[in-house]
């Protein structure tokens, strides 16, 4: 599973920052059938959590209505230098993590 996280590299303390994540995932809805007519089991990223220096700042529960390769974006306040770490799990039990470093000045 490939994922990318984007945060501004250097920001001022207290500044509002945009955090973005894109994950490569099929997000199989469970409503489709294969060539032989068998149902393709649902497999979506069901939970995605973002932690900023170990404090949870964002949590999303995704479902079958989210397109493949989900792209999420949210805002947070830059308080301290450190890492924003994402972790997620899909219906097949596969887990993924990705992180980005952030440096806060002032």
């Amino acid at each position: 599973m490939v994922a990318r996280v984007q945060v501004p590299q250097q920001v001022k303390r207290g500044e509002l920052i945009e955090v973005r994540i894109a994950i490569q995932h099929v997000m199989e809805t469970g409503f489709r059938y294969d060539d032989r007519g068998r149902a393709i089991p649902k497999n979506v990223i069901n939970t995605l959590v973002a932690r900023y220096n170990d404090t949870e700042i964002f949590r999303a529960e995704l479902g079958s209505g989210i397109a493949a390769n989900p792209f999420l974006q949210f805002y947070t306040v830059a308080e301290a230098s450190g890492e924003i770490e994402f972790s997620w799990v899909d219906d097949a039990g596969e887990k993924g993590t990705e992180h980005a470093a952030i440096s806060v000045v002032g």
Partner: protein
Amino acid sequence: MRGEGLTADSSYVRSLGLFIGVHRRLSAVSFLLLLMFAGGPAPAAEPQRPQPLKSGGEFSSSELRALQADDFGNPGMLWVVRGEKLWGEAAGRNGKSCAACHGDARQSMKGIATHYPKVDPGAARLVNLEGRVNLCRERHQGAEPLQYESEELLGLTAYVAHQSRGMPVDVTIDLQNRKNYERGRDFYYARRGQMNLSCSHCHDRNWGGRLLGETISQGHGNAYPIYRLEWQTAGSLHRRFRSCLFGVRAELLPGGSRELLDLELYLAWRAGGLTIETPGVRR
């Protein structure tokens, strides 16, 4: 499927014969005129590039163009990142990665994709980027070839082609690839499938027009591999060819087949001067 094409042709000839039977008094001149118009696009003269050349992106919505231009939002970049990782990973018996020979792709692969597909002298056949990756795996890495349309091959080709982004497609037709070019050109102008349409009918005569909800593009391959919303994934130019073949209800040729490679060469010639956009985003 080839047989069906023949049946369609012969019934066409029969109905022509009937037509002649009924209108025996038609003058020879008008009959000739009729043949000229019924014959479809004639590839006799050297074909022309569409004027002005327009990349497929120009037929997309502004939102889609913005998505392609955003290097983070562009979902195709996920495949480029995947390719970048694979580039540095050792594979095969020889334990070599792509980087072991080619070094930093940002330098060594710059502009490479603009000259593909290309005749490989050793293999004495036309290869595209996919074929080149697999030849490298076979010759230098001692690895199994990657399956066409596999995530790995899409990643590597997207990564390599991405290094040429912004550079013009530049394929020259010479003695080595002339035959391939001619076969590709003939494929492009040949009617096929139950719909009895050639590529040219849509992409030369009717680009900019509508096909249900879609705007017909000029059919250039300069943004491939692309991320296509309909597929919900990245795909190669040959997958796109297969979509078109399916659309005209023709035989679905396998990705990497000789016919599709020749067509890719013809299209590369036809798109000469357009800049590479990999990874493109299309509907």
